[in-house]
């Protein structure tokens, strides 16, 4: 019984990592850059939704849609201002810029909304389903898993079938060749960021519905854990993000419950190292040969 309840707790935590990891992995898969500001876009999304639902008493749907809209615009603006000028620069320069952008967003949020913590009102209500005595799944977890699966399928279909999706894949394989084929690389990458940021807004709302503490640094640690989950599942792979996220959550809870609450993070990252040693591209990662 205790074991099962730990599994459920692990899945609850993991589903949150998974939904953040989806956005991470999608941007990485196409733009080939680690957008470390993703966690902070999540935070902005959560704040927008918070203000709509708690301050102005709007229905949750309005809050979610508006926060998706704000994050989409923010994602495009960030991409245009910070990343586009570096399109030809080394990946290290882009990485550092992304870290800078992450701090910029955190401190900007602090100026705008102060560092006083806020308690987020769950958009799916507080209830849950009591399976049996001692086994309890909250609605947030169920919704998060459902949303994860929907997003995963939608993204897979979108990148596989639609014209825009094909353009994205082309850009990810070879930007130069894609351009020669008449694909507008800049627009394609902007759209990638727009989609990634809209996903971030959804992730932010669900993150804060599960763990209602909202501060300007809310997104940073879950963002890093989700990045780990994405690497674990194979960065760039959309189903990998889901599996990696859930596994990471379960490992974290098991490490806490059965080994020690003090060193649970060390154990999580040790598992990651072992996986990467055995399978350097992650669980579902494809082996891509480097061009010479």
């Amino acid at each position, binding site marked *: 019984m205790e074991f099962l309840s730990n599994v459920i707790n692990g899945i609850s935590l993991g589903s949150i990592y998974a939904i953040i990891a989806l956005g991470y992995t999608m941007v990485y898969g196409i733009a080939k850059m680690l957008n470390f500001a993703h966690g902070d876009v999540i935070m902005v999304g959560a704040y927008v939704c918070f203000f709509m639902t708690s301050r102005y008493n709007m229905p949750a749907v309005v809050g979610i849609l508006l926060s998706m809209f704000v994050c989409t615009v923010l994602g495009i603006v960030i991409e245009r201002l910070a990343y586009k000028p570096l399109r030809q620069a080394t990946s290290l320069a882009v990485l550092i810029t992304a870290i800078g952008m992450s701090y910029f967003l955190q401190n900007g949020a602090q100026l705008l909304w102060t560092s006083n913590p806020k308690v987020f009102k769950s958009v799916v209500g507080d209830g849950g389903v009591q399976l049996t005595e001692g086994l309890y799944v909250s609605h947030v977890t169920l919704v998060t898993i459902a949303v994860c699966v929907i997003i995963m399928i939608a993204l897979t279909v979108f990148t596989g079938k639609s014209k825009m999706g094909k353009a994205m894949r082309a850009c990810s394989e070879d930007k130069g060749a894609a351009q020669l084929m008449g694909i507008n690389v800049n627009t394609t990458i902007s759209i990638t960021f727009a989609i990634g940021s809209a996903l971030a807004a959804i992730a932010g709302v669900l993150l804060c519905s599960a*763990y209602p503490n909202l501060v300007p640094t809310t997104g940073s640690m879950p963002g890093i854990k989700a990045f780990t989950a994405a690497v674990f599942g194979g960065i760039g792979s959309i189903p990998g993000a889901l599996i990696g996220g859930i596994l990471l959550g379960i490992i974290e809870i098991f490490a806490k419950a059965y080994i020690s609450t*003090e060193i649970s993070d060390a154990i999580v990252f040790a598992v990651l190292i072992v996986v990467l040693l055995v399978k350097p591209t992650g669980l579902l990662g494809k082996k891509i040969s480097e061009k010479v």
Partner: protein
Amino acid sequence: MKKMKKLVCFGLISAMMLSAFAGCGKKSGSDVIRIGGTGPLTGGAAVYGNAAKRGAEIAVEEINALGGMQFELRYEDDTHDAEKAVNAYNILKDWEVQISLGSVTTNPCIATAAETYADRIFALTPSASSTDVTKGKDNMFQMCFSDPNQGSASAQYISEKALGTKIAIIYKNDDAYSTGIFETFTDKADELGINVVSTTTFNTDSQNDFSVQLSDAKNAGADLVFLPMYYEAAALILDQAKKMNYAPKFFGVDGMDGILTLEGFDTTLAEGVMLLTPFSADATDEKTVNFVKKYNEKYNETPNQFAADAYDCVYAIYEACQKGEVTSDMTAEEICDIMIAQFTTMKFDGLTGNGMTWGKNGEVSKSPKGMVIQNGVYVGLD
């Protein structure tokens, strides 16, 4: 276009240089006493630093309005980082600070306390509560309880009032404040024969999910959970405990203060939560009412314990300065000796307690008040 860019660049660079110079050697009129402190004004712990800064500002304004002795207050940002705190302190030293308010949070304060000790500048921290802050330094004093005091006082209180038979503890193991209280609590608990059935931890990186910790406490049958931590994490614990239908008594420490003013927090979650705290914004004495009103008018929020501690710091320094006949032309070292003599002998009444005294080790002695949250307000337990 290129020319334009160059012009903009030039403009920005000159603006930068100007602002860099602007920070230098600005000293104000000669008959004010310069008080400086460091605290996290930005970053994750900014809520504490800003509260302390604002509390101190109000006190300085009130004192200056009285005429007579004049203070000038300067707070520098340390982002809750020990290295940056030393840099911030050096800025204050260049400004020729005469009396220090130490640092707001514990780790930075340990670093700045070493500096003020070496420079012979008197320091009184509003809220850095670890004994490592004051240890071995004759000129470092605290306004808040030291961690050991809180831990043992909590254990004593729980035992005296027979609040629980099986106790669980959840503490934050990367935080000196939380571990400090935890250690003295368990020592005292052993001594008093309190039955601790579950001890679990978390850290800054895993501050979201408490399912394992709460399950452990629940499975061990704990009827009281001791939470030596700040209110942010405590709010999540209360929320998650309710979701898993676990309703023990919760007992917090002064870091719990602020939970009721947390925006969007469902105060029914905190119903029945007990805590030991020196300050409550809902108290009805004249001093507190005045302070809360001023703070609300000026900053549009309810002050927490950090603000009250910093406010008391400035008043305690004011009293000591008057009794010791400190004047603004004295050096920091001269003031330091006078202040040490004053603080170890004086009795001070403030927002956070009456009849406070200080020991030679710099620790304050004041009695914590037991509070319980009922219908969304603090009610005295005794």
